[in-house]
């Protein structure tokens, strides 16, 4: 039974490891996209502009309230319908599918951005008001203050929350398998289907997810400790 997932001639080991690398890469890409969207949304939530605040609020409520599976489906099929229409105008025929990796990345980005926005907003609100006052009193420009005072501290306060969102993204990346991207979940399904040994394949996939989650979790804890050096904790 273990030959199946081994590295022998008929082993699925290399394929599963390669798929796990795709999962990791997809999750990182989605998380980074989400960081950008989340930062913009958090900025909008904290801004004075009422319309921007409302849009960012609606974004958060929408993508934290709708199942991630539906978001991925909607993005893939919606995007493909739009692309097929564009294709018809330029003379192409039939269904045009979106690139799967990019769709998965954007979907994970949109979903995790909604969660990351809350993390960044909370972290910003945790900054001592006196720090900002002091920066202003020194005559720092807005950009300098953002770069030297606000962003470093927001990142420090945000790390524990970001670690949670990262774990969420990693597990959500399994859902991208439904649009046909061959990441870890999909590869396990393919292996299970062609060997009729689903148990060992889904166990291996689970173990690899666990391995990625544990190593990256340790990494987050290390970064957290590093950023907290010099701060006394209760």
């Amino acid at each position, binding site marked *: 039974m273990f030959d199946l997932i081994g590295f022998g001639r008929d082993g699925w080991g290399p394929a599963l490891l390669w798929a796990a690398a795709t999962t990791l890469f997809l999750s990182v890409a989605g998380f980074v996209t989400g960081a950008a969207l989340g930062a913009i949304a958090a900025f909008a939530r904290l801004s004075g502009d009422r319309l921007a605040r409302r849009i960012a609020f609606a974004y958060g409520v929408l993508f934290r*309230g*709708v199942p991630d599976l539906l978001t991925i489906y*909607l993005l893939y099929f*919606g995007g493909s319908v739009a692309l097929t229409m564009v294709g018809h105008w330029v003379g192409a025929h039939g269904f045009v599918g979106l690139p799967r990796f990019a769709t998965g990345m954007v979907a994970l980005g949109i979903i995790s951005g909604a969660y990351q926005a809350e993390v960044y907003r909370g972290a910003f609100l945790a900054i001592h008001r006196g720090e900002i006052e002091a920066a202003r009193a020194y005559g720092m420009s807005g950009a300098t203050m953002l770069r030297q005072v606000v962003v470093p501290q927001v990142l420090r306060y945000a790390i524990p929350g970001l670690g949670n969102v990262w774990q969420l993204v990693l597990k959500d990346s399994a859902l991208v398998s439904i649009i046909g991207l061959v990441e870890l*979940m999909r590869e396990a399904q393919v292996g299970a289907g062609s060997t009729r040994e689903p*148990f060992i394949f889904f166990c291996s996939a689970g173990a690899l*997810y666990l391995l990625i989650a544990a190593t990256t979790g340790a990494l987050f804890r290390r970064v957290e400790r590093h950023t907290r050096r010099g701060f006394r904790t209760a």
Partner: protein
Amino acid sequence: MDIAFLANTLAQLLRGAPLTLELAATSVGLGFVFALTLALALQSAPATIGWPIRAYVATFRGTPLLVQIFLIYYGLGQFRPTLQALDLWGFFRQPYWCAILALTLNTAAYGAEIIRGGLQSVPHGQIEAARACGMPPWTVYRLVILPIALRQALPSYGNEIILMIKGTSLTSIVTLLEITGVAQQIISQTYRAVEVFACAGAIYLSMNYVVARALVAIEHHLSPHLRVPDIEAAVAIEGGLH
């Protein structure tokens, strides 16, 4: 926009809503009982019982729900002769029970961690005071520790409930006809994926909105000591007294 189609779709999708709610309520209910048991066991048990619980929690929190559903439904299906010999095949043959099992085990792992956090947040002085009053250990748990711990855990547990409602959509992949499953059925007949999925999303969103509102109301009800005193009401009462 085709209003008639949207209305018709919405009506059809709503027929999947009872199953969605049933899956979510059953797994959250069973999961809570299981989670509470695990959290209490972790509190008081020796390390030999503690480490399998911790391993279970880490495993189910560290792997995707989809993997868990597939492992239980397809993976265990591989052991059909054994399950038949154990008279369990009737359970594992049905996607409904496999889905309930996967969702319950998943939410119990998260729930145990949330309740453990709640238990740890109970100030030691409260427990000491209860003991000083002469309460037996079980009464301390029932009257002091659990009410404080569960109140403390409520916001996180609320998030978990909403995650579970969203999580039920994955059971459509193992052929259950809850909201997402019905949506896929309609799409295979009409090929109008965007409208149908948008309608399904709207239903989930309103469900989660209602649940979130209810949780805020419960939280408000359970924490009178944290409320900002209503100044106007106080003034009105005082005015009435004069």
